[in-house]
């Protein structure tokens, strides 16, 4: 199992051009990561995907005559590697963008029409961002937070997660607050606490990510987070919290 950068582009000239940009980026940043490129979806794609731990995928939407090739592959990738960074490279501006966004949560879209300069800039930016996310394991917390609703898998970078909370008049539902999102899903804090032990259970209704803490109001026992969010701390947990703050 390894990390990998993956490129799918049927036009050989463009394939060479993009590959060069990607490989240069890897070289400059001294990333040692596997790079594979294809002009069509390989027959053993399932095997390839199963061997990838974390991946950055640059996918052309149209491969040959198949307008859905990139999309279909993206769905496959999402199923096998839920936290993969998927970037679509496409000429179409008439895509169902919102559908794609919800179905696949692509990291970015790169529109070919904008010219090679823009494409280069975006590829470099996206590659660096993706690889930094993997490298920067702050306080050994997992890279991504995730949860399930029925069979759909939702995830976000752990560094984006601020806190999780429950509300008394809404039992069985957890509210997730991150830097750019607020989401509700059925679960309970006990289960999540077990699955993500780096999070801190400050109170019966709050499970928080201390990495995004701004300061702690001792008198009122409230943790203040970025963007003005707050979480209560129960009396039992104040000592544990103070220990954790001091040890950082």
């Amino acid at each position: 199992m390894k990390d990998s950068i993956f490129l799918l582009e049927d036009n050989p000239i463009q394939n060479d051009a993009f590959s060069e940009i990607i490989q240069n980026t890897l070289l400059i940043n001294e990333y040692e990561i596997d790079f594979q490129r294809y002009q069509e979806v390989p027959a053993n794609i399932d095997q390839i995907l199963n061997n990838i731990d974390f991946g950055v995928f640059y996918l052309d939407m149209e491969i040959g005559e198949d307008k859905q090739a990139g999309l279909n592959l993206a769905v496959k990738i999402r199923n096998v590697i839920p936290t993969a960074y998927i970037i679509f490279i496409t000429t179409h501006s008439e895509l169902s963008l919102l559908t794609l966004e919800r179905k696949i949560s692509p990291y970015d879209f790169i529109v070919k029409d904008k010219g090679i300069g823009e494409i280069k800039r975006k590829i470099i930016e996206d590659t660096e961002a993706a690889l930094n996310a993997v490298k920067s394991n702050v306080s050994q917390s997992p890279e991504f937070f995730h949860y399930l609703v029925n069979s759909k898998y939702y995830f976000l970078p752990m560094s984006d997660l601020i806190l999780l909370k429950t509300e008394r008049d809404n039992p069985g539902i957890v509210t997730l607050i991150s830097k750019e999102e607020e989401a509700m899903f059925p679960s309970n804090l006990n289960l999540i606490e077990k699955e993500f032990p780096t999070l801190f259970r400050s109170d019966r209704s709050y499970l928080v990510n201390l990495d995004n803490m701004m300061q702690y109001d001792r008198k009122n026992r409230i943790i203040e987070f970025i963007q003005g969010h707050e979480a209560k701390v129960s009396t039992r947990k104040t000592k544990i919290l103070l220990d954790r703050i001091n040890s950082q």
Partner: protein
Amino acid sequence: MTYLVIEWLFIEDFMVLFIVFNLTDHLLKKVTLKGFFMNCFKAIFFAFFYLFFSELVYIFIVVCYMLYEIIRKRDHKLERENYQYLDVLVISSTIQFVLFSLSNFLVNLLLTQLKIETTKGTLNFKESAMQVIASCLLDIFLVLLLVYFLNRSTKTRSLGVLIQQVNELNLNKQAFQMLFSFFCGMELIIFISNMQKITAEIQLVLIVVFFTIILFMYWQVILFAQNYAVQKESVQQAHYNQQISDYLQEIKRQNNEIRQFKHDFNNILISMEHYVRSNDVSELKDYYVELSKQEAAMDNLQDLRLAKIGVIKNDSIKSILVQKFFQARRQGIYLNLELEDDSYETTHNIVPIIRVIGILLDNAIEYAKSHQLKEIHCAFINFGEVLEISVENELKNDVNISQLMTAGYSTKKNHSGLGLANVKMLAQQEKGLYLNISKKNHHFQVTLIINNGVG
């Protein structure tokens, strides 16, 4: 009056209650093995009270259930499904009460005729056994017969459909109040008549009278519920018809545009042919410019995608989307509907979903109007049993999501600011509805997640 030995009285009481609980589960279509065993325990537990309170035990059971649910729930309030259970419990109790009294009476009559027992006085163990077993068997037979007829009756009048309809129209609590008051009245009269040792024949007359009244009430309620439902539907249908006719107008207009375009395009081609033959480059250049202008005109033919709306199987959702589409159009905004799959459907309670879609689209249209945006997006996505409905618009300024969700906050002047908070409340009140709000990449996106496996 006949008196049974206490053991058989207990067994009789147990059987009566056991049948009531199981009949309730059957009518609610919630028969499970676990439920079956729970009913055994409940029947045994309440049979003890039956020995002491006789018929008043039914009232006791209702009160116990209500207290249990109130204590169990976090918000200490009874919900729709609790009232529905109580409704059906009272109905089952009434049915069982009437049928069992009848069975008892008939068996008693039969055994007396056969000179197996006397009409009055205490029966011995053996006689009690025969009385109880025979009554129970006859009762079960009658209950099954009744259930069979209830299921067979035409769809619109069957008990099961009525229960569902009452649930959909949210009349469970009222139905319970009505049924329970009537039931209490009946119980009280029976109880007092037992205490006064009124003869069995008079009791039978009382039972028949009550039964007739119940049938009458049942008939009235069916009529009312049907009427109410038909009324609602015709209002919706009228609304929908208006939308369809608006939409057809649009299609006609667009067909004309396309026809016009084809006409002009052909003219240009024909004219060009002449200049191609004579190799006249400058004239050809002019025609090229002409053609490019035509191409720009084609871009305005956007609305053809609305035709895809047929893939949404819930009529009310279709209806509100068409309505919002035209509402947006009137404000100069294009509601881009993304419907990539062949079919979208939800089995969830539709009313809160419609309300949420309405509010989200209103908000998006409002924002687009005041920030000069040309289009907003609404996408439907299937994930197995999960249906996502997502509304998105570009974000020109930063917003604070948590602030938006609190009631009373609004970025619009003279607006009550209830929109998004209302959406959150609607989602919270329903099982299987969840909300996601995101402001990534300068796009404001609110998604309603519907878990079709729940609710």
